[in-house]
């Protein structure tokens, strides 16, 4: 019993550590989002219908419709009509 509990706790801990924000593009066109992660600018390309994991340590993203978003790394976002909706 104790072994199972210990193993379960370790598993939960590990699952908690491994995290990043996931962005899903529900539109029919691909987007290239401007992302600033830890002060470094980059472009994040998401194909139509694709899903990416990004932004482990917090970042700023500019959505296709011009909105700025700040992510801390635990969010799940869907892009619909260029707008971001948080799940």
């Amino acid at each position, binding site marked *: 019993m104790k072994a199972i509990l210990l*193993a379960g706790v370790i598993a939960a801990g590990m699952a908690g*550590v491994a995290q990043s924000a996931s962005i899903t593009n529900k539109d029919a066109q691909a987007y290239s989002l401007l992302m600033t992660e*830890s002060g470094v600018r980059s472009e994040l390309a998401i194909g139509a219908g694709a899903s990416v994991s990004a932004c482990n340590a917090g970042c700023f993203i500019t959505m296709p419709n011009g909105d700025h978003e700040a992510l801390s790394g635990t969010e799940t976002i869907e892009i619909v009509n260029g707008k971001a909706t948080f799940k």
Partner: protein
Amino acid sequence: MTGYLRFFILLAGILLAGNAFAQSGQGASKIQGASKIEALDHQLAGIERKIAENATNDEQLVSLRLELEQLSKSLIDFGVSFRPELISVNGRLAELGSAPKDGDPAEPEVMTQERNDLLARKVAINGFLSNAESMSIRINDAMNRIGDLRRDLFANTLLRRTDSTGVFNPDTLSSFQLGMAELERLFASRIQFIWNFRKSSLFAAIGLSLLFSFASWFAFRRAFAPMLFHRIGHEASYFNRISIAFFSTFVPALTVTAALGVTYALTIYFGIFAGQSLEIFRSLLIAIAGFFFIQRLVIAVVVPRRPGLRLAPFSNSASWRLAALAIAMAAIHIVDFFFDRLNQTLSAPLPVTVAESMIAAILIGMLIVLIALVKPFPDKQTGRSRAWPIAIRVPMLLLAGFVILAAALGYVGLARFMAAQIVITGAILATMLIGIQTGRAVSEDGALAGSSVGVRLASRFSFSETALDQIGVVLALCIYLLVLLIGAPLIALQWGFNWIDITSTMYRLFTSITIGSFSISLFSILLGVLLFFVGFLATRQLQHWLDRNVMAKSRIDSGVRNSIRTVTGYAGIAVAALVGVSVAGFDLSNLAIVAGALSLGIGFGLQNIVNNFVSGLILLVERPFKVGDWVVTGSTTGMVRRISVRATEIETFQKQTVILPNSELINNSVGNWTHRNHLGRVDIAVGVAYGSDPRFVHGLLMEIAESDRSVLKVPAPMAVFVGFGDSSLDFELRVHIQDVFEGLVVSTRLRFAIFEAFKENGIEIPFPQRDINIKTPQTAPTQDPSHPEKDVAREPANVRVPPEGGLLEGNDGQDD
């Protein structure tokens, strides 16, 4: 009327006020956002300024970098804090819809106003967020600047050369003496001050710290007495040695550190020391604590007095020498550290600091050379000792030589840096080695089984010896992994990488290793394996629980229990495997395509296996036989020992185990002697000689049957007159017995009884009978007219010999 008017005015007033309040509320949050970002900007500007000011102060630069990291986090939090507002603004804008185009009917003023307000707010928020974004870029630039500054600083320190003549001259000595005098003066005046004005505080401080020290010393002794050296016998296992080393190092070190920390706190509280004297006092305490810890550590590892407790197989003399050298090196290091602090606090002139560093570096270098020259491993065959392996000895000598050379040539910074790195990296590597030794000790056969942890595991989960050994191997792997995970970052830290870089690299290493378009995540795989293991253990526990609590209470027989247990096991493992695989991140859809292509070939190949497996399941459910039954299949007869996935084990009565594939048991007929009950029938065939009285024989047989204790009354025994045999009257005695396994015993007993009864009554059991007719020739002419060539007299006698195995028909056997 006036009443209504008054009421109406009041209501209007309240509404207006509320509106104004809401407006100002919004305005307030607008201002709030603005003020927050202004504050953050102010902070960042301050840090940037301080970076420029402290370009030569490494410590300050490190702390500024930490501040920058904090600021970066605050920026993200600031950005995230706008999200709920942004969501609600967007939602409200969606509700309001877009502005009416030209030609469409105009909308109410309120709506337009609201929309404009919302849009303005959104613009403001976006402005804040983009502001925060650009600030995060500034932060990154500032961090890069700090990195560059530190690198330059480091390179300068390392490569700065001081001419030795500039250092070793009488001026330096007099500076040093001056410095010492100043120190004396500082402390003398301080002590006098305390003695005159703070005597009581001094005594209180001394008394309390002594009290705390003694109390913690006694507590430590009481709590960890069993772990201390002198209680353990001579030859201890590696586990014991490690735990002793651990407890005899860390615990006293912690105690001492705590005691010194309390002393320091009391000193501050009572105001005994202040300013420079306080800093010097603090450095002294740190030096004492550090020395104590290292001395304990070294002794715990080489243990000069007790060879049986050493963590490495050093010879006795080598242990003493190594201990002395290592402690001396630690002492010099710490004295060097203390003097360094002293020089900093007292702002000693440069030549003094350089001289001190030079001396320390050269001494440490020489000590490293001495350590490298020790021959620590005893060679039992030759009696002499072996030196360190070349891979260790040569680098040590080279590095030590380098240190001494650098110090002598004046590159003092470099020498100090190298010396510090050698010592600390060496210590970390040595600790890692000990960790690996522990892992190896755990993975040895029987090691885990012998330890107390192993004994507890064995009793709790009923693991066998081999299972414990396997667990030992797994544990050893975990220990190796742990050693690597702790040791590598420590060394990286030591060599100047910062914590964030290390953690992010390790994080990336674990979560996604991308090979082409495949992304493997070690974390996920480990998690999958762990979950499978958990599921496996849980299934075992479930099986035990079901067996013990549910099925033992209800009176299901053991065959069904076995079946249910096996099926639960299969189901549990299947579920655990699925969970493990899906968590590990394997995309089973890819596998499906491959599996589809291979399925034809695999299907043909696995045909029989699947056949057997399904047959096994059917056997478990239908239970034509269960474990413990006596079955007969084809040519095999024996007891069923195990019904498993593919095959069933049958143990013949000659103790041979026949492993039959289940499909054979399903497809062919299987005879089960103990299917519904254990009843059996014994048939004993006996023939009596012609001339015996059949009815008498029948009665005799029945009597024998009825008098036997194992013969059942229901079904009643039967003596059957089966026929007129060639040599005998054939009877058969058929009796039923309770336990078919007794069959042989009962038939033997009955046969004995029949034989004795027949003998007593004079009934013969005949051998196979033959009639022989001999025709003798007459004296008449011996020629047969019809056959002139034959001589009758010479014809053989008419002896009728029966064909093989047959009896002559007809005549009774003549007996005497």
